[in-house]
């Protein structure tokens, strides 16, 4: 009797030990697999710069959680610009992207890709395509931009769907010739949707203007920075010391207009309209 219960106990012990050993083996094996997968995920969720997400896409980390890789956006894009990432491509497998230089977003007004998205991966609250921020165009190479070289290429400016807001042409003097103007394309993040039409249209061999993901293209001021002129406007006047009108120590009958006509004879002078020499110079004596 005693012996029997002892062997029973031993058998129970052994099977319990086996159970713990099996569980530990499984937990370690699968845990290791999970760790590898997690580390791989860290690499694979970093979006390469040439891959632009469709309009309304959440920030990258949230996007890779919300996107269920169904490809509905790809199907409903009327211009077939979207692709799903293949396993060998360096981003989350099965997520949608487009390459601006191959085919940019055509900015459909009804945004069918967002409408068809079954999750919040493409933000359904975005209804105005002009408010989308797929990326930000950056005139990345001034050395090959034809406008910087003095030509009137202007193509990026012309093809921009938000012309004169997202890209403007800023005249500058051409220091090389000394007599011509440069018309410099300047991108404004307040209006650029990142559609990539400028990059697609850039006529140089490799585009001088490129759409980059927002995190690469956009800088950010430190939180404590204040723009003096903005604050002044908000306050309705100078915040430091009251502005005093600058006093020019000028000869009588002359006036100086800063940023305007410069030095002129004061038309309100009582004497003749012609410039009059100051008294000090009259009569050859001091």
């Amino acid at each position: 009797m005693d012996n029997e219960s002892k062997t029973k106990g031993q058998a129970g012990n052994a099977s319990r030990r086996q159970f713990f050993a099996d569980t530990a083996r499984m937990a370690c094996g699968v845990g290791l697999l999970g760790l590898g997968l997690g580390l791989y995920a860290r690499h694979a969720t970093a979006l390469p710069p040439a891959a632009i997400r469709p309009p309304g896409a959440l920030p990258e980390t949230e996007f890779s959680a919300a996107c269920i890789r169904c490809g509905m956006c790809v199907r409903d894009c009327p211009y077939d610009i979207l692709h799903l990432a293949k396993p060998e491509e360096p981003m989350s497998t099965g997520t949608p992207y487009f390459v601006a230089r191959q085919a940019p977003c055509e900015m459909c007004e009804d945004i069918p890709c967002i409408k068809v998205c079954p999750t919040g991966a493409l933000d359904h609250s975005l209804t105005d395509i002009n408010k989308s921020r797929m990326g930000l165009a950056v005139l990345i190479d001034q050395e090959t931009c034809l406008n910087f070289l003095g030509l009137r290429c202007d193509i990026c400016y012309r093809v921009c769907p938000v012309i004169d807001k997202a890209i403007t042409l800023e005249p500058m003097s051409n220091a090389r010739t000394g007599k011509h103007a440069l018309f410099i394309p300047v991108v404004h993040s307040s209006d650029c949707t990142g559609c990539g039409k400028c990059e697609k249209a850039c006529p140089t061999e490799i585009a001088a203007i490129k759409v980059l993901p927002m995190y690469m293209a956009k800088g950010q001021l430190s939180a404590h920075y204040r723009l003096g002129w903005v604050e002044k406007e908000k306050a309705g006047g100078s915040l430091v010391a009251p502005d005093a009108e600058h006093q020019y120590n000028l000869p009588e009958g002359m006036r100086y207009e800063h940023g305007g006509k410069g030095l002129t004879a004061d038309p309100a002078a009582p004497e003749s309209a012609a410039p009059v020499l100051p008294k000090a110079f009259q009569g050859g004596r001091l």
Partner: protein
Amino acid sequence: MSAVPQRPGAEAVAEKGWLRAHKWLILRRISQIGILLLFLVGPWFKLWIVKGNLNYSYTLDFLPLADPYLLLQMLVAGQSPERLALIGVVIVLLFYLLVGGRTYCSWVCPVNLVTDLANWLRMRLGLKGGAHLSRSTRYWILGMTLVAAAVSGTIVWEMVNPVSMLHRGLFFGLGMAWAVILVVFLFDLFVMRHGWCGHLCPVGAFYSLIGKLSVTRVRLPQREACNDCMDCFAVCPEQQVIRPALKGIGGTPPVIMEENCTNCGRCIDVCSKDVFKFGSRFGISGN
């Protein structure tokens, strides 16, 4: 009894004829290939009967279907679906509650075509043995994918999931997914019998949870007619599910209630004594 070992199902072919001995196998292949074709006529002929893939699809601009396992991963990663995906997931859950959880595996999943081919080849080549792994491994992997999604805040499993990789790849461009599928094929062929679908795949593991409650079951109304030919065991991808119901171990009623039965119906095909047939989980005492 002939001295040469017969291939499983030979007796059933002799008894019932080839067609009846392959009925469910043929229907299953029609279902698997038919579903693939439904998705393929879109990109091939611009005939959009169904858009999307197994993760989420929209049929005839009317019927949304969404994969509950994927949506669960999305939820634990901290995101939420839109209305159509919610409707889709409810439809899918109800459907598989009716037809059987892992019916997904043998009637819908494209990887089953690959692993069935591997297993067929394994049998024809007479490959035996291989690595051993507990069939519960899949539940560990299932748990791991959910933990990984919660910790990383992204759907980690979708980066390597061969099931969606193959299905998506067929309609959106395969890329290197063929290599992943080849690995699954070779693993099943040389390393482990029913290795992927029967031991590792967390998608199947998830659908087996639905299978705990599902209605459609393989029943054994004539289990006393069993002549122990073992053909059903030879063809069953989840052999452990048959024995309790067939032998009435511990008073088990004659219906396969095991959640990992994939309702493939191959046991019905190969049984020359017509022991098995499809039925429901209800009315156990009636038979």
